[in-house]
């Protein structure tokens, strides 16, 4: 921030204006005291230089509010920071994290932010429960943390028995889940059915005195019940990166054997799966000429095949493979675009992709600009290299 005083023309004009007896405003010219700066002037250039790009990184305008900037530990004061400790909370808010595959997902962060918010307003503490791992939740607004290392498989009965113990030991006022299929949504309903506690699902407005849950074409409104799952509109939020205690809490568990037996994942060929539900898409555009290599790579990655409109128009891929505004709007976790320049309709179609990897020969292609990992190279060279590397990984 620069120290240059900031002029506030609105304030100056207000001071120089007097209202006459007839109610008419008139401006006084001349001697008006200069106003004190309202707040320091913001220098966007300084900000820009502060956000130093990494060695291979690029700067980008982030409409979501500089998420990474805020979370970068280096920006917080090193070492000296003392965690906030809540010794006697008025109540406990239990947040049951999904942690799919042992990783903290966006929905988990959103859940913690909502739990923190509710806890702050009730002067309570956030108790986080992670069943399949021990991530560091210190900067995610967590006061207490129950971490378990249950085997990483889908076992709702085990989750339910742990929850039963936690409920008995800690009596949380509210139990929050994310409304994620097979994860939070499933466990929350099981808990509601097993305990008979009042529950609200797909809560999209969460206040200490009133919540709104999305029903079928209507909203259910009432005081917050013990069990709640949060609608995705609440899960985009992130907790403030303030250091909290995240005190480990031990819990004695003997997970019951459930009725459901997991017989393992069924191998499915995903290359021709519906694009809308794919979570890994390899997509081809005009820049792809080596189609056997493209299809081999897709098969090797077991990724769903997509394509640009041009490619589908020419019959190189079937029509149902078209990604874009006039084809399918896709939302995979990762989108690998080979030889796609990025027509506006195509970019619309991939708006909701979490990560975009683009391989294209044109440095100035829109796709390269959009990509999170952009590689300016010929797709025909990269695809076989990727294939070889994948083969090596499998054998080595």
């Amino acid at each position, binding site marked *: 921030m620069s120290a240059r005083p900031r002029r506030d023309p609105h304030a100056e004009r207000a001071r120089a204006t007097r209202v006459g007896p007839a109610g008419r405003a008139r401006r006084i010219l001349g001697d008006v005291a200069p106003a004190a700066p309202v707040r320091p002037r913001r220098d966007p250039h300084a900000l*820009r230089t502060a*956000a130093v*790009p990494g060695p291979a*990184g*690029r700067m*980008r*305008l*982030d409409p*979501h*509010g*500089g*998420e990474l*900037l805020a979370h970068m530990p280096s920006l917080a004061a090193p070492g000296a920071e003392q965690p906030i400790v809540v010794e006697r909370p008025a109540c406990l808010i239990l947040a049951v994290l999904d942690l799919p*595959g042992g*990783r903290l997902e966006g929905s988990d962060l959103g859940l913690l932010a909502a739990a923190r918010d509710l806890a702050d307003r009730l002067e309570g503490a956030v108790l986080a429960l992670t069943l399949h791992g021990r991530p560091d939740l210190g900067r995610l607004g967590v006061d207490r943390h129950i971490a378990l290392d249950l085997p990483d498989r889908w076992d709702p009965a085990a989750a339910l028995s742990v929850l039963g113990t936690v409920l008995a030991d800690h009596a949380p006022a509210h139990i929050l889940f994310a409304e994620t299929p*097979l994860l939070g949504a499933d466990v929350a*309903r*099981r808990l509601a*059915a*097993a305990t008979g506690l009042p*529950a*609200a*699902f797909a809560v999209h407005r969460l206040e200490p005195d009133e919540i*709104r849950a*999305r*029903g*079928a*074409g*209507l*909203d259910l*409104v*009432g005081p917050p019940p013990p069990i709640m799952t949060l609608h995705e509109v609440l*899960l*985009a939020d992130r907790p403030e990166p303030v250091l909290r205690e995240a005190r480990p809490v031990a819990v004695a568990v003997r997970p019951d054997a459930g*009725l459901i*037996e*997991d017989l*393992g*994942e*069924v191998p*499915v060929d*995903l290359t021709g799966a519906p694009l809308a*539900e794919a979570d*890994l898409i390899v997509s081809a555009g005009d820049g792809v000429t080596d189609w056997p290599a493209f299809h081999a790579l897709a098969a090797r*990655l*077991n990724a769903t095949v997509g394509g640009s409109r041009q490619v589908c128009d020419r019959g190189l891929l079937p029509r149902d493979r078209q990604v874009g505004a006039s084809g399918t709007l896709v939302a995979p*976790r*990762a989108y690998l675009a080979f030889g796609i320049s990025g027509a506006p309709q195509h970019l619309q179609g991939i708006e909701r992709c979490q*990560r975009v990897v683009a391989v294209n020969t044109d440095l100035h292609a829109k796709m390269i600009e959009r*990509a*999170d*990992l*952009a590689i*300016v*190279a010929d797709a025909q*060279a990269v695809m076989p290299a*990727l294939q*070889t*590397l994948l083969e090596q990984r*499998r054998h080595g």
Partner: protein
Amino acid sequence: MAEIVALLSAGCHPETGRLRPAAGDAAALALGLALCASGHRLIGLHAGPADDALRVYAGFAAFDLVRLDLPAEADALPAILPWLAERHPALVLAGARAEQGAGTGLLPYALAQAMGAACIPEVAGVEELAERVTLVQALPGGRRRRLAAPAPAVLVAAARAAPPSGWAYARALRARTVPVTVQEPAATPAWRSEPARPLARPVRRIRGGAAARMAAATSFTAGKGQLLVQPPPDEAARVILAYLEAEGLLRS
């Protein structure tokens, strides 16, 4: 052969509010019809005041239709439970959420709890039904997982599963339902309900007032995008692979 009950609720078109087969229940019916083809008996069960809601499902195939006579707003669970207890079906199939009313998706779980049966969500297909039921569950991203549970079990059809094909007017027209009179359950304390309005786009909340919002709107994030210009193919492949691996997307 075993008896299967598909719970069929009155659907509701999202734009016009008119009656139609509920998407989730139709998917559940598709699971049931597939089992029907291998010799099991399928009963479509609806709890509600009129036959019309059941008739829209009857167009998909010929199967038995039973309607528990209940007012539209009544809780279906207390009516369904004794009926199911009497019939002992091997499987109960349901959709994920109703298209009218609260639509909490809790009913199959509550039903399973009361029956002492397993409740399995996101079911994409049933492979085998005898003493145990073997089924395939849909996972995110189009993947599948095989599960087994003892019968009876409550299965919730996958939200993205295809509805049955072949809706025919004549079948719906000629369908006959069996009405069953049931005792009306006591009214449960209900939530206040209001018409749903479209939700705002999910956004991250910016804390700390207008200045923070301004800062957020104009801030730059570094290091999020990565650019490699004319790297050797091996190098490019390595970077891509590392990237996918970090995302947990390498399945082989």
